[in-house]
C-alpha cells in the first residue's frame, strides 16, 4: 500500500484526533529509539492544544523535565507550565502511597511496611513494583477536581522498552491469574480494565527506520494486540530521512562527494522501505524527521511537538 504525501498529512490529522480523545497514552518501543523525546513532544503538543496533560516517567533517571529546560520534578506531580505537569514515578514512593491509600493511616504503614520481615515478603512478590507504578499512574487517570471534572485530560507515560513494556503492561492480568480475590486482585482488575479499554488507552509505538527496530516494532504491535490487549493507536517512525538526492543529482556528483550523497540516498531509501513495512500493519503512522541537535533540548521537543500538531516537518 502506497500512501501519497497528501494522504499522509490527512492521516496525521486523524492521528492527532485519535490521541486527543484518549485519556491514557503509553509511549513505548525498542531501547534508544527516542521514546522519551517523543513522550515529551507529545505531552507538549497535547498541553499546547489546551488539554491538561500529565507526563509520567517510570524508568528511574528523570529526563523529561530537564529535556524541557526545567529542574527535575521528583516524585510529586509538579506543574511545568500552562496545562503541563510532570512526575517521576518511583517504586518505593509509589508503594508507600498505594499502601496508604489502602490502609489510611501513616502509623500503620510504618509499623507494617517498614517491618523487615514484611519487606522480605514484599520483595519476593515479583511484580509488586510494576503494579504500584502502574497503580499510581492509573490513579492519576481517575483523579477528579472538586467540580467532578477529571484532574488531567491526558496522561502520557514514558514506558519501559519493548520486552519490559510487555511485562509492565501485563502485570494486572498476570496478577489476576495469580492472586486469589482480595484488595490486590480488585485493584489489578480495574487497572486491567482501564488499560485494555480502547476508548481510554492507546499505545504509541516509537521506531527507527532500521531493520531491527522495525522488526521489533512489528513484534511489539502483535504482542500488544494479542497478548497485552492494549490498543496500538499510533506508530511514530522517528529519525526519518527524506529523499534529498535524485538519480540525476547522484550522476552529476564526482567522488568523494558522490559517496556522501549516495550514503544519504541509501538512508532515505531505507527510511522509505521501513515506512512501507510499518504502514502495512494498518495502524496510523507518522514520521518525525531526524534532528541534528545535540544534546536534544526543549527547542527540539517543541519542533517535534509542532510536527505532531501541524503535520509538517519542522
Amino acid at each position, binding site marked *: 500500500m502506497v500512501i501519497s504525501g497528501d494522504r499522509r498529512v490527512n492521516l496525521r490529522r486523524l492521528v492527532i484526533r485519535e490521541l486527543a480523545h484518549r485519556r491514557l497514552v503509553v509511549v513505548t518501543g525498542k531501547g534508544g529509539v527516542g521514546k522519551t523525546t517523543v513522550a515529551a513532544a507529545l505531552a507538549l503538543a497535547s498541553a499546547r492544544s489546551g488539554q491538561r496533560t500529565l507526563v509520567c516517567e517510570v524508568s528511574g533517571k528523570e529526563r523529561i523535565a530537564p529535556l524541557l529546560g526545567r529542574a527535575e520534578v521528583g516524585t510529586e506531580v509538579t506543574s511545568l507550565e500552562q496545562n503541563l505537569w510532570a512526575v517521576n514515578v518511583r517504586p518505593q514512593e509509589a508503594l508507600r502511597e498505594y499502601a496508604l491509600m489502602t490502609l489510611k493511616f501513616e502509623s500503620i504503614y510504618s*509499623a507494617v511496611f517498614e517491618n523487615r520481615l514484611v519487606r*522480605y515478603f514484599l520483595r519476593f512478590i*515479583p511484580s509488586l513494583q510494576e503494579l504500584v507504578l502502574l497503580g499510581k499512574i492509573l490513579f492519576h487517570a481517575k483523579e477528579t477536581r472538586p467540580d467532578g471534572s477529571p484532574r488531567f485530560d491526558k496522561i502520557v507515560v514514558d514506558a519501559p522498552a519493548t520486552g*519490559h513494556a510487555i511485562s509492565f503492561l501485563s502485570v494486572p492480568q498476570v496478577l489476576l491469574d*495469580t492472586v486469589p480475590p*482480595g484488595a490486590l486482585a480488585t485493584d489489578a482488575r480495574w487497572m486491567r480494565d482501564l488499560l485494555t479499554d480502547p476508548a481510554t488507552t492507546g499505545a504509541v509505538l516509537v521506531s527507527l527506520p532500521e531493520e531491527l527496530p522495525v522488526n521489533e516494532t512489528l513484534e511489539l504491535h502483535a504482542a500488544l494486540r494479542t497478548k497485552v490487549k492494549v490498543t496500538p493507536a499510533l506508530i511514530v517512525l522517528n529519525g526519518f530521512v527524506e529523499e534529498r538526492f535524485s538519480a540525476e543529482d547522484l550522476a552529476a556528483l*564526482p567522488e568523494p562527494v558522490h559517496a556522501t550523497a549516495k550514503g544519504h540516498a541509501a538512508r532515505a531509501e531505507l527510511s522509505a522501505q521501513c515506512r512501507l513495512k510499518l504502514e502495512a500493519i494498518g495502524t496510523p503512522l507518522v514520521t518525525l524527521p531526524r534532528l541534528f541537535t545535540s544534546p536534544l533540548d526543549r527547542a527540539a521537543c517543541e519542533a517535534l511537538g509542532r510536527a505532531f500538531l501541524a503535520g509538517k516537518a519542522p
Partner: protein
Amino acid sequence: MTPLREAIEGCSVLVTVGAGGVGKTTIAAALGLRAAMEGKGSLVCTIDPARRLANALGLSELGNAEARISESTLAAAGLAARAPMHAMMLDMKRTWDELIERRAPPDKRERILNNRFYVALSTALAGSQEYIAMEKLCELRLHRDYPLVVLDTPPTAHAVDFLDAPNRILDFLDNEAAKWLLTPALAAGKFGLKLFNLGGSYIAKTISRFTGTETLQQLAEFMLSLSTMNEGFRERAHETRALLEADTTGFVLVTSALPERLDEAVTFHTMLVQNKMRVVAVVVNRTHAPVPAEAWAACARLPAGALRTKLEQTLKENEHLAKVDALGVQRLAAGCPGTPLVQVPRFELDVHDLSSLWATSNYLWG
C-alpha cells in the same frame, strides 16, 4: 594485540552489557562469529525478551536449545568457520521447569510446578529472568564444553538486576529474618497465616488487607516448597558469583557515543568495576567518521545551486554527527579510566546479516 582479540582468545565467558538500542546483540553475535572463524567454538546466548539475535544471524527462529549456525548459511555469506558457532535464546519457562525438576525433592515437584505463584514467576512476572539467566549461564559453563560462551543481557536497568541476581538469592537465603519467618511454619507442618503470627496478628491482618488472605497463604506455601531447595540455590549462587568474577570471564560494555547514553555507560562501568567484574573493553558502536577535507573541497568546486546547497547540508549534518561522537568518545575515555575503548563505525546500512557481522568483527578483532 587488541583487548577484544585477547579476550576472545583468553576468556571462556564474555558478557555484553549496556543500554537498550546500542547494538549489544550485534556485538555479542560478532564476537561469537569471530571466535568460531578463528577456530574457537562458540555459543551466543541472548536473554533479551525481544528476539533480536535470530534476526541478526539470519535464523528464522532461536529456541531454548542451542542451534548450530549451518556451514551453508556461513558459506552463503562467504565465510568458512574453523570451529562451530551456536546460538540460542533463553526460554524462561522451560529453564525454570528444568531447574525445579532437577533440584526439587520428588514429593515437592508437583506442588511447586502447580502453585500459581510459580506459574507466574516462571512465565510472565518481570524480574525473574535475571535469576534464570544466571542459572543457565552456570549450567552451560559446567555441563557443556563450549570454549567460549557469549552472553547477551537485557538493557541497563535490568542488567543491574542481572548482576545483582545471585546476590539477591544469597541475601534472601542467608538472611536471619527469612529463616525466622519460615522455620516455625515448617515445624508446625502446615502453611498459612501462622507464619505471620510471629510478628503479631496485627501485621498479618494489615498485610492481608493489602494482598488478600489467600495470597499470603499461597505465597507462604510457595516459599516453603522452594525452601527445601535452599542448599542448592545457595551453592549455585556462589558458583555464579565465582563465575562472573573469574579471570576467564570478561565484560564487554557496549554503548553509542550519543550524549544521552554516556552517563548510563559510565555508571555501568563504575558499577561493574565496584563489583570486581573485569571489563575487557568499552565498545563505542556506530560512530561517525569526520568529513574528509577533500569532500569539502569537492563541494566548493561545484557550481552554486540547489545541488551544492543540498550537498553542503549533508556534509554539515555528517560533520555534526562526527563531532558529537568525538566528544562522546572523549568523555567515555575520561569516565572509564583503565578500560580500552574500541570504536565500531556506523555502517551505511543496518547490521543484520552474517557478512555485516563479519565486517563488525573486524573492528573488534583489530
